[in-house]
């Protein structure tokens, strides 16, 4: 960072063009990361607040009054409307701002140019605008927490008509308007980013970097961007139609309703239409979140096992298969909306098909570990965690994809457990892994590995501690988004006892897990300033980013952009002296590529 003067072609930058309105992909990536960390901290705090209510319902708690004050936690007891607001904003921030903007935004930005051998993104300006739209949408979303009627409270899926009628719930007032505006801006950011990633990957690869020599990270970011470009616009239209229903009296999503005592004239629309539009994005969104995490860990698992990733082409194939299938499975969120059962059957079929490429990925990961020589960096630990959560969360998806079984567990905690494990944990583990692994590339310093290990084990144990019991709570028939479960006491006390016991366990682990993240936050920010200075290729990795100097410079490489001669996974290749061989090393005579 400090070495700008040393390179002649590097024009002078002011503080503002370097740190704020930067068009350099590395700086933009870091901006995405830091913003996402701040958003994640907020979302985690929100979740701890509602977990306190769920674990100890109705008990006065000073943490609640500390954060929420007398308005939303009178006498330290969480307000029911605010409970829904917390749940909604927690989900929204985590899914969109942390795991979409934070994960794709950070790593696509930092790694795409560096790993394909490009000087920067195709358009630095669009890239900068993408970040600033993300920033603005984050601010709007956070601001919505502080308005008088409270934030949006219809769940992160904002199903109408609840989200359309202000009279139906306080959160559907200006809180919902802000939510919709924020999401519109966010999608703008995501689209600009994605277009940029696609163009960069397709057009700006260095000499020799064939598509079949791309690291799996790049494949994952590339396909993720394609999914985003194809699905996010549908959500924009859904959101804009909802704004019209709310403000202009149209009736896309509403039909023959009476809210409060008011007979509404809006007629002829369908709430189910919104569900279709929402999940047309909503399901691909799961893979927008997941694929980058899988890409990052493919790279990390291979590097730290000192082995090529097993089945490179099969891995690419399964990314493509998952991406394609993700567009034709959205109906599995809607089995019990009264949709035609035949259509439901079709969605059962397509959904369960996704299990095949997912299984291929898991077995390929495991085979990569087999007879490896594994180094446990924090990044590697989190990658193992990802594979475990991907398995554990993935198989419960089999239950939920089966429409007949979904009837019994739809909208219960079983669903909450499923998607948190498979999507939330996997993606966040992937993100942590990525941060630990590429931190030296981002900041030129190392994060403390001991703290990283402590962070990992606390996170792994508490994450499963939170979400594993939730399966039981859900199978036991506890609906999600309930403020408390006292209703069970009156009709089935056996169930009530189990739900309450486990809710306490879950809440305790949630608090431990949240505190554990302090270690990461501290390690991260401390290391940016004071971490041990990094060497150029600390993990002895093959990919191109490690051939760039530690100091960041515009254009990434001081001289020529390196030429690529081989795939990125030549680890422990027989006949090699070292157990790695960078992509820039030419093939020896008679050497097979792979």
């Amino acid at each position: 960072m400090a070495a700008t003067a040393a390179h002649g072609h590097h024009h002078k930058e002011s503080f503002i063009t370097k740190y704020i309105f930067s068009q350099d992909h590395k700086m933009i990536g870091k901006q995405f990361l830091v913003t996402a960390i701040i958003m994640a901290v907020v979302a985690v705090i929100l979740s701890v607040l509602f977990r306190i209510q769920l674990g100890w319902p109705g008990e006065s708690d000073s943490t609640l009054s500390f954060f929420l004050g007398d308005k939303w936690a009178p006498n330290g007891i969480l307000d029911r409307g605010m409970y829904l607001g917390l749940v909604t904003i927690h989900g929204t921030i985590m899914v969109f701002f942390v795991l979409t903007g934070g994960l794709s935004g950070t790593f696509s930005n930092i790694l795409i140019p560096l790993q394909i051998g490009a000087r920067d993104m195709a358009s630095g300006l669009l890239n900068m605008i993408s970040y600033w739209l993300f920033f603005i949408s984050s601010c709007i979303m956070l601001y919505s927490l502080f308005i008088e009627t409270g934030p949006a409270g219809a769940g992160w899926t904002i199903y109408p008509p609840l989200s359309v009628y202000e009279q139906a719930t306080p959160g559907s007032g200006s809180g919902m308007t802000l939510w919709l505006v924020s999401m519109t801006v966010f999608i703008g950011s995501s689209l600009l980013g994605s277009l940029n990633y696609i163009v960069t990957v397709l057009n700006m690869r260095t000499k020799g970097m064939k598509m079949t020599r791309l690291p799996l990270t790049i494949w994952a970011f590339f396909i993720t961007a394609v999914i985003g470009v194809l699905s996010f616009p549908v959500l924009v239209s859904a959101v804009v139609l909802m704004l019209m229903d709310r403000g202009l009296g149209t009736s896309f999503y509403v039909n023959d309703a009476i809210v409060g005592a008011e007979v509404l004239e809006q007629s002829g629309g369908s709430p189910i239409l919104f569900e279709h539009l929402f999940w047309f994005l909503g399901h691909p969104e799961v893979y927008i979140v997941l694929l980058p995490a899988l890409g990052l860990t493919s790279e990390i698992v291979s590097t730290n096992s000192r082995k090529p990733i097993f089945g490179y082409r099969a891995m690419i194939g399964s990314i493509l298969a998952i991406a394609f299938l993700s567009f034709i499975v959205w109906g599995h969120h809607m089995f019990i909306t009264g949709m035609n059962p035949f259509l439901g059957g079709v969605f059962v079929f397509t959904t369960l098909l996704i299990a095949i490429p997912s299984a291929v990925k898991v077995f390929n990961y495991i085979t990569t570990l087999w007879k490896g020589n594994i180094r446990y960096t924090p990044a590697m630990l989190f990658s193992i965690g990802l594979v475990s959560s991907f398995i554990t969360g993935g198989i419960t998806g089999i239950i939920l994809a089966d429409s007949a079984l979904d009837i019994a567990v739809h909208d219960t905690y079983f669903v909450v457990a499923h998607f948190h494990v498979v999507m939330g944990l996997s993606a966040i583990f992937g993100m942590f892994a990525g941060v630990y692994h590429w931190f030296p590339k981002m900041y030129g310093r190392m994060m403390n590995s001991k703290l990283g290990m402590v962070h990992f084990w606390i996170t792994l144990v508490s994450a499963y501690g939170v979400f594993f019991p939730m399966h039981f709570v859900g199978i036991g028939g506890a609906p999600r988004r309930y403020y408390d479960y006292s209703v069970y006491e009156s009709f089935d006390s056996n169930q009530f006892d189990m739900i309450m016991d486990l809710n306490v366990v879950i809440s305790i682990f949630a608090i431990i897990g949240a505190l554990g993240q302090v270690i990461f936050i501290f390690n991260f920010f401390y290391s940016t300033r004071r971490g041990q200075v990094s060497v150029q290729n600390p993990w002895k990795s093959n990919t191109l980013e490690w051939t760039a100097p530690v100091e960041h410079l515009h254009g990434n490489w001081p001289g020529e952009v390196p030429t690529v001669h081989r795939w990125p996974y030549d680890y422990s290749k027989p006949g090699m002296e070292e157990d790695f061989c960078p992509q820039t090393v030419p093939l020896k005579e008679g050497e097979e590529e792979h």
Partner: protein
Amino acid sequence: MGMKLIVLVVIVLAVIAVAQLMRVYELSSKLRGYKEEDIDLKTNNINAGLMMVFLAFFFGSMLYMLFVYGNGMLPEAASEHGKDIDWLFDVNWVIVFAVFFITNGILFYFAYKYSYHPDRKAFYFPHDNKLEMIWTIVPAAALAVIIVLGLMTWNQVTGKASDDAVVIELYAKQFDWTARYSGEDNKLGHADYKLVNGDNPLGVVTEENILKRIDEIDQLIADNEQQLAALDSGTIIVSKANEYKLQHEIEKMGRIKQRIIHMQTAFGDSVYQMAADDYISKTALYLIKDQEYQLVFRAKDVLHSAYFPHFRAQMNCVPGMRTHLKMKPIFTTKEMQEKTGNPEFQYILLCNKICGVSHYNMNLPVIVGTEEDFEAWKSNEVNTTKVVVSEEPESETSDETNDAMETDSTQVEG
């Protein structure tokens, strides 16, 4: 406020203290020539060992929870199709548990076994078509079984109800449920949201209800016009926005009235007749054991979802749309109380789609009894409801046509 300040100060001091400790660590590792990227063998082994410890803990806690809460899960399905669903669950659990234990087991075991050793070199093994074939085909075969069994059950569960099925409507609104029984004719009277008012909470279409609603709307329009007139003459003052609202309300109710009048011309006695013997209950949904039911769902305001955990049944309730499901209870409440060993056990209908602040409190007890029990409950329930109705200054004469044809004492609503 003071409390918050203290908390903040403590946090700041803690951060400073940790940062100082880190400085010490940093200096000492610099002295030792320690490099962050080199994970020493001992640390690496500790992590590898912890993989196995975690695995044991993970599987152990899973088995422990199954042992402790296995029985705490929902009791045996209390509906005919619920038994099929439970059977399908069992089949799927076998597959899910097998995959869970085997893959997680292998993952953590490999993570432990192949941890770094300086003397070993990793095995270069980039791909193997045969292996990849195996783990494409095996999951595909397992999934084929799951899909076929799943779709068979699904088709059964969602198939048409038989002609003997008794029709009951469940009407959802923030934050309660109303059950409407279709009575002797097993036909629900039509319903329209424009007719909903205090006397007719479900908007049931009868001639009486239509006339009453038209009167009510006329009254409402007259009231609003009176207010506007008062506004013109300067007796009251309201904001321009409210004035506009009044005008808008008059126009809107006028349009709604027109539509109701259309309805009146379109419908005849044959339609009104269907509603004549319907009756409602807000206190419970009473079902007869071994009787098949066709449940029809409507919603007044926002989405709700009718969730019967013990019957393994669930269906969304959508404003402006009718959804339905079929269900046949197979155990009475009493039998279920014996089965669960809980004398206070009750079936319940919960709302399972977020519908507003009191979502968690929206439920309706469900009772399953024999036919005699049901008749006893019905006469009781119907009588009590009737008292409420007769309190209203009802103009019985307007309903002459209905009364002439249907003198059923069970006529309560509509």
